[in-house]
């Protein structure tokens, strides 16, 4: 019951003594109070709102009065505070514009912080949903000799790491692929699957939802026995039927028994660069003994569970020992200086998200500060405007305390209402923010509104209320100190004005920092867009086809299918060129690494020549618009009967042949023939300009391209170029693919542009959210400055009137008012400039193609804000020049 939870939550707002005395019965009464809900969400919402209102209305009383009547200190009677609150509530309701502006400011500030903190909490703070998640570590492979970092492990390396059993309770590995074909009732479809060591689930502490998961004994059999389904696949494909367990399905043409189903919501938490997605459709197991696998085929992402009490450093030392053993056992790993490094799984999995989220949190923190300054300004202005009222109250004997209580009571009401609205808006904002999140920024499956978020919001609200209250108290003092002057509502200068100036300076400074940040992100986005990625992504459609190894076991058959699909695609009206690759840039990158050494390389130096190996059809490099800088493209004649040939990229060319002229030389990459990978000498026939692989921001790590006919793998992504809108082809593609063979499926059809957008997601996300906040910030700062200048101009009405009566001309008056605005704006911009320079360090890892200290950006932002500031002061300044001296002088 949601209202029960709400009631328990609300009860916690009361003082301990109150809860001890009335708590249980209070809850009982709350349950009675909210019992007869009209059915449906709206009915319970209405009751929840009623309970909330009932509590909040009466809550102050529980705090304000204390103890039995005899012990109550004089003057602190609950009645007086109650009276003040009542009076303040009426006053607040009577000035709707002020109230809406103040509550809105507080709510916006609190809401943005609640939303961003919810995401920070869900992603960075909440522990991973595994058993003892603190003891889970990822183990990466570093190849300093080859200049490569964070690579996966080979089977034999993982086997060696298992030997460090004093530090590690278990070591498990996973390799993810999206090209597994499943056949159900005659229809085929593609699944994403994880090939895992049999102990992975056990190591994470996951229990089967139905059936069983892999056990070690199972892995000892030579072939992976059985498949474990994800809860989602089980629901979608088999309707959640338990009878499917024990039946046999066709996976890649092999009969495979379904052994169990994972729990709902099971998520993998690997970093973005691990190529292991958060969820996969199904899992099959590797044999337990990994030693017979090729030692240089690095494909396993490794997660280890350390024994209790073993820290990261101990685990690191154990991993380093293991890499020493691996280097002795497998000399091929020597040259790279191959060694293992260990990081906590949680920290590693959020390493890409952390800087972005922290910058975002900092931005909304500043934004809150700005909103509060805005509210302080509003309260201040209101208090000063009520100078006459306060002066009268003071004159008929109101104490300083009672005046202060009035203002504080008002601030209290505004803060509580603003915070509650903010919390509600924040909850909506969280959903919106979570919906916008780029792929890979955050892997948490949801962002709950838990005790941490509520505590954070409460803390902020209290701080906000305190800040505003302090600001307003200063104003009250200034009013009260001059009751005579107050009678005229005429207060030149004084602390009130100074405070407002300070608030406005602060607002402008925050505005400068936020606008600088978001314009740097926008420029980064533009630089990324203009970056040469080595091919032309616009105007192309992509989709994936898996070639079922069970259905099409021979190399010749798969090569023929790839070619025929390409021809069918070329027949679609509007298609100008089509080709296919095993690894599409920005989508399927760096899933494993293997050596491609030049001929004659001694075994101990082979691993210095790691490369990403791709198999492409002859027309692929032409279709994507890659530029051949030496030699030639692939031709149709580079097929299974022709001599083995490869094209390498410029990075690879520099790595293998630093002396230059690679065309015609021989290298030894491995290729996929007769069902397995084997090393084959191949002649380099061409060199292409580097093609960015992981994202537009990441340079190539070195790629080697095989003609697909000479390395006919089981998965292909087609790249179809058109003169028009690529989405228009989407309807024609599935038919064209099926026409070649009814067992072929076009999956994940998407324009290449979409992949580019997703690869630049974090930058795009920060630019978007940053622009929203900096826009609001500038708006608030402009309103603040407008208010300040208008306020000062009004205060100076008499002076201006007198001066105009004595012959001052409008431009002089205008200049005077504007000069004041410009002074405040100048101070704010200078302070903001210092802040922006200080924040540059935080942005260093997030910007691209622009320095966080970029003088043009900083200068531009400053000028822009000064212009906005002057524009905001122009209105009130102009009004001052139209002061009618006669009217002003006649005033009492």
């Amino acid at each position, binding site marked *: 019951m949601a209202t029960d939870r709400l009631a328990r939550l609300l009860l916690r707002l009361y003082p301990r003594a109150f809860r001890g*005395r*009335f708590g249980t*019965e209070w*809850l009982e*009464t709350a349950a009675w*109070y909210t019992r007869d809900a009209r059915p449906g969400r709206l009915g319970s919402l209405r009751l929840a709102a009623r309970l909330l209102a*009932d509590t909040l209305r009466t809550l102050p009383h529980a705090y304000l*009065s204390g103890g*039995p009547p005899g012990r109550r200190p004089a003057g602190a009677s609950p009645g007086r505070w109650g009276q003040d609150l009542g009076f303040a509530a009426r006053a607040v309701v009577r000035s709707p514009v002020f109230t809406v502006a103040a509550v809105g400011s507080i709510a916006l500030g609190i809401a943005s912080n609640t939303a961003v903190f919810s995401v920070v909490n869900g992603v960075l703070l909440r522990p991973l949903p595994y058993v003892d998640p603190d003891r889970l570590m990822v183990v990466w492979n570093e190849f300093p000799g080859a200049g490569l970092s964070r690579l996966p492990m080979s089977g034999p390396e993982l086997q060696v790491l298992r030997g460090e059993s004093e530090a590690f309770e278990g070591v498990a590995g996973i390799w993810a692929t999206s090209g597994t074909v499943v056949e159900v009732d005659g229809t085929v479809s593609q699944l994403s699957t994880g090939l895992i060591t049999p102990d992975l689930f056990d190591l994470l502490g996951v229990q089967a939802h139905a059936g069983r998961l892999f056990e070690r004994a199972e892995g000892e059999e030579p072939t992976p026995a059985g498949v474990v389904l994800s809860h989602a696949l089980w629901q979608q494909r088999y309707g959640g039927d338990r009878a499917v367990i024990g039946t046999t399905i066709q996976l890649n043409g092999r009969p495979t028994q379904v052994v169990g189903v994972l729990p709902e919501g099971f998520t993998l938490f690997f970093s973005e660069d691990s190529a292991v997605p958060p969820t996969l459709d199904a899992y099959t197991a590797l044999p337990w003994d990994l030693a017979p696998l090729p030692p240089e085929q690095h494909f396993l992402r490794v997660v280890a569970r350390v024994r209790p009490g073993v820290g990261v450093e101990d685990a690191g030392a154990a991993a380093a020992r293991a890499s020493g053993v691996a280097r002795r056992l497998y000399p091929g790993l020597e040259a790279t200086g191959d060694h293992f490094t260990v990081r906590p799984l949680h920290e590693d999995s959020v390493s890409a998200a952390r800087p972005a989220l922290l910058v975002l949190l900092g931005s909304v923190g500043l934004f809150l500060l700005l909103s509060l300054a805005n509210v302080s300004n509003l309260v201040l202005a209101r208090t000063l405007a009520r100078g006459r009222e306060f002066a009268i109250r003071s004159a008929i004997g109101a104490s300083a305390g009672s005046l202060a209580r009035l203002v504080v009571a008002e601030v209290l009401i505004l803060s509580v209402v603003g915070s509650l609205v903010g919390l509600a808006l924040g909850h909506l904002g969280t959903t919106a923010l979570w919906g916008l999140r780029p792929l890979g920024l955050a892997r948490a499956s949801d962002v709950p509104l838990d005790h941490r978020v509520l505590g954070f919001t409460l803390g902020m609200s209290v701080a906000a209320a305190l800040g505003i209250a302090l600001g307003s108290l200063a104003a009250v003092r200034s009013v009260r100190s001059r009751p005579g002057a107050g009678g005229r509502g005429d207060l030149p200068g004084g602390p009130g004005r100074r405070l407002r100036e300070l608030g406005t300076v602060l607002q402008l400074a925050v505005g400068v920092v936020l606008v600088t940040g978001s314009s740097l992100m926008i420029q980064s986005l533009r630089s990324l867009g203009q970056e040469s990625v080595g091919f032309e992504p616009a105007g192309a459609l992509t989709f994936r086809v898996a070639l079922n190894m069970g259905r099409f076991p021979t190399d010749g058959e798969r090569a023929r299918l790839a070619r025929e699909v390409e021809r069918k695609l070329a027949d679609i009206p509007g298609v100008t060129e089509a080709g296919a690759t095993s690894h599409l840039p920005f989508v399927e990158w760096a899933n494993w690494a293997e050596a491609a050494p030049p001929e004659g390389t001694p075994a101990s130096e082979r691993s210095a020549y790691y490369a990403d190996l791709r198999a492409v059809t002859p027309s692929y490099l032409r279709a994507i618009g890659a530029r051949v800088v030496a030699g030639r493209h692939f031709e149709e004649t580079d097929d299974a009967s022709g001599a083995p040939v490869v094209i390498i990229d410029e990075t690879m060319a520099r790595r293998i042949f630093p002396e230059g002229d690679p065309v015609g030389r021989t290298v030894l990459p491995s290729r996929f023939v007769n069902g397995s990978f084997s090393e084959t000498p191949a002649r380099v026939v061409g060199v292409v300009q580097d093609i960015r692989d992981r994202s537009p921001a990441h340079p190539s790590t070195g790629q080697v391209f095989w003609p697909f006919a000479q390395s006919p793998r089981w998965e292909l992504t087609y790249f179809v170029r058109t003169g028009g809108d690529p989405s228009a082809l989407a309807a024609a593609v599935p038919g064209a693919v099926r026409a070649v063979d009814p067992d072929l499926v076009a999956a994940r059809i998407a324009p290449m542009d979409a992949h580019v957008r997703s690869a630049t997601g974090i930058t795009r996300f920060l630019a978007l959210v940053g622009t929203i906040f900096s826009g609001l910030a500038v708006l608030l700062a402009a309103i603040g400055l407008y208010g300040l200048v208008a306020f000062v101009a009004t205060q100076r009405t008499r002076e201006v009137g007198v001066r105009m009566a004595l012959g001052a001309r409008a431009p002089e008056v205008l200049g005077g008012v504007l000069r004041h605005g410009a002074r405040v704006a100048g101070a704010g911009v200078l302070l903001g400039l210092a802040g922006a320079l200080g924040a540059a360090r935080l942005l260093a890892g997030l910007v691209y193609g622009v320095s966080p200290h970029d003088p043009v950006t900083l200068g531009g932002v400053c000028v822009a804000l000064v212009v906005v500031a002057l524009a905001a002061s122009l209105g009130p300044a102009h009004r001052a020049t139209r002061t009618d001296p006669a009217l002003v002088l006649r005033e009492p």
Partner: protein
Amino acid sequence: MTDRGTTRPVAGTSFYVLLALADQPRYGLGIAEEVARRTGGEIRLGPGTLYGTLKKLLEEGHIGEVTPSGHDQDPRRRYYGILPAGRLALSAEAARLEQLVFAARAKGALPLA
């Protein structure tokens, strides 16, 4: 703001709570139910209002915690009974209301009983 020495009437929720306790001691929810019954379901006291009022009435010495002697006593609950000060305040308010009703009748706003 209690003015000790003279008996001030109690208004609003306090009046309903004292009225509910006038015939017998009751516990918290029992009071809320009695008030709802007495007003034909018109007035349902929320937990914040009810226990806020009970706290205030306790502090003002209008009511006190009692151990009832009935057979339907629940040991887990706290029972409240009306004290002499509370009874005085209740009658003061009732008298005030009576005067108002009298005035209303005199002006023809209510039919004569």
